[in-house]
């Protein structure tokens, strides 16, 4: 007996409707994905749902008061709230380059939080 699980791929706006067929707790097949990312996503939603973290941290001496940051890869969905809380207290100093590590190993997930853009020093 195969069980069906329905997901909507959230990795790009195409929002493919995915159908995962499961047999005895194992993934048998994924249908409906327009690309490979979707197949992997359905498998993850089934086993261990993960999400990207995107938020901002305070930056001192920059052209703008906030620096947008993101997780380098996804982290377990249940830890997103905690990750954002941990980042609420972070203050970095300008200048920053896109990709710079802002917070290594966020909430012990092994995933680094990196800058999402360049932010030069304010030209005073």
């Amino acid at each position: 007996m195969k069980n069906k699980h329905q997901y909507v791929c959230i990795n790009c706006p195409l929002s493919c409707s995915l159908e995962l067929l499961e047999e005895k707790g194992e993934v048998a097949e994924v249908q409906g994905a327009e690309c490979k990312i979707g197949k992997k996503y359905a498998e993850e939603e089934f086993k261990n749902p993960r999400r990207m973290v995107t938020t901002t941290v305070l930056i001192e001496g920059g052209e703008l008061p906030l620096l947008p940051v993101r997780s380098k890869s996804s982290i377990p969905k249940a830890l997103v709230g905690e990750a954002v809380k941990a980042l609420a207290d972070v203050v970095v100093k300008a200048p920053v380059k896109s990709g710079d590590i802002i917070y290594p190993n966020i909430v012990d997930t092994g995933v680094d939080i990196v800058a999402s853009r360049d932010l030069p020093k304010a030209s005073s």
Partner: protein
Amino acid sequence: MKKVRKPDVAIVGAGPAGLAAALSAKEAGLRDVMLIERDIELGGILPQCIHDGFGSIIFKETLTGPDYAQRYINRVGKTNIDVKLNTLVLDLKPNKTMTAVNSTDGIFDVEPKSVILAMGSRERTRHQILIPGFRPAGVITAGAAQRYINIEGLMPGKEFVILGSGDIGLIMARRVTLEGGHVTGVFEVAGEPGGLTRNVVQCLHDYDIPLHLSHTVTFIHGRKRVQGVNVARVDENMKPLKETEKFIECDTLMLSVGLIPENELSKKAGIELDPVTGGPIVDERMETSVDGIFACGNVVSIYDLVDYVSRSAEAAGVGAFEYVNGKKRSGRAIKVVPGNNVKFTVPQVVRSLERPVSLYFRVEEPRLKVVASVSVNGEEVARKKERKVRPPEMVKIDLKPERLSAAGEEMKEIQLEVAPSEK
């Protein structure tokens, strides 16, 4: 008097559309490219869209808005494109003369050989005006809230009700929740969410935020600050049902009721606009009804994928290069007729199929398992299967020149329709 600048092309707006258009014009071979932006930095609306999900088509990975913009900004930085920040274009004439203003040069004219319009869009606020009640502080558009929270670091409220389920509203429902605010619910007057499915899933479902379809806000309470709103279910004619009305306490009403192309300049230049998209009518090289004035990105039509915005801009950049180098458009503009279940197409007209043309379109009704098909003079030239089509999700279909040139006929009629796939 200063000498009037006469660049090969002047681009108005430096969001993803303007950036990609400038690069494409430059790479095609235009020497003097001028990029004009009223904001203090490049990137348009993207710097405030800090969530991920941009670039999956062009870069094959999912980037945040600032990341996506950064890639183009870095490329522009390696060229001699003349970037003018803090500069607002005030006027554009049909002969392409434009008037702009900034604090160093004052008011000045530019006489470009070609123009690319890339002014993007603005948020609809119409609904705000129609809701009865007072006009207290605490009524805010989702885009403004996005700017406050993500750029300026200010929380616009604590207890939110969101009217409209457009993408920015959905994204902001999650954002304010993560920032410690509370969203009581998202109320959508239509029977279908206005935003992308992916945003309903990852912004509402993930955070247990209820989405109330066929509901609207009927009254705003509070004189100085919002104290609450009345919400009610609506009938098939979108009329609120009095008996379902109830009060919800909140200090902020966030509106996410869609975007409209920003076309004040286009109107001044006498460009013909499409009443359905709200943007200029363009042909396959993104040229508007005025020779030598091109348009791309959200100023043409609200594209939901930034990747499509960049693609439309690349076509406009090449178009401007051709125009400046004497390749004026030729051939009659043949309207792409929106057939069954097609709301509109961009481009709206096609002059020739010498080059590959991508038609972007929206459907009128959501459908499962359909085939989009394009026919020229009654003969099918392109066909694409879609598992699911929904009005908020734009669809793209590619026309390949080989398919038609073999016939060698003159193009008389193009039609696009979406029909159930037989089986």
